[in-house]
């Protein structure tokens, strides 16, 4: 997992290795599962409308399947430029 911006700050780390159970098959389900790991995770994932995701560095909707993803990133809407 990779986290950026205030998601990273709330969780307290920019990356972690995880091993979710088999029934976690979408980004959305993964977020739900991650929210139980710590108070920081719960805070970071409290408002789904403010979250965006990438699976193997490709932007996806939260409903997207995880498939055989090796790298999942959760972050706020981007604000570059």
């Amino acid at each position, binding site marked *: 997992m*990779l986290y*950026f*911006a*205030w998601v*990273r700050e709330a969780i307290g780390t920019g990356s972690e290795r995880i091993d979710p159970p088999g029934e976690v098959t979408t980004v959305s389900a993964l977020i739900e599962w991650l929210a139980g790991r710590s108070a920081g995770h719960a805070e970071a994932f409290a408002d789904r409308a403010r979250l965006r995701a*990438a699976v193997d*560095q490709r*932007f996806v909707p939260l409903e997207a399947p995880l498939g055989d993803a090796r790298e999942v*990133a959760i*972050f*706020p*809407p*981007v*604000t*570059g*430029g």
Partner: protein
Amino acid sequence: MIRVTERPIDVAALLDALPETGALATFVGRVRADDGVTELMLEHYPGATERALEAVAATATERWELANAIIVHRIGAMAPGEAIVFVAAAAAHRQAALDACAFMIDRLKTDAPFWKRETRGREARWVEQRGGDRAAAARWDHDPDESS
């Protein structure tokens, strides 16, 4: 050419390196000095950022037949007045250069994984995405002006 860099953007050097095409449009976005921000920090998603910028530049190059497309984006901490982003489009004709330049800056604002954190004195806050940025990017999805 795309570049993500922690060092100050040297606009003059970038311009010097461009081919002498008929038309060159550029855009420089800077940390605004007029709204109390004392430091701007740019976080990014290494790897995904470069891929996103490459895609924006490649799309512009194909759509407007550019001789050159450049996106240079600063990351890390920077002070008011410093350049955050430099975009350049070189083409044979002016409309292609102007449109491609506007397209690239609009698109990278919604497509590239950067996050801005503004510090004002002791207070730091993450910048929220603006609805206007999404609208500006979306207007290129079907642009009747493309051939003008």
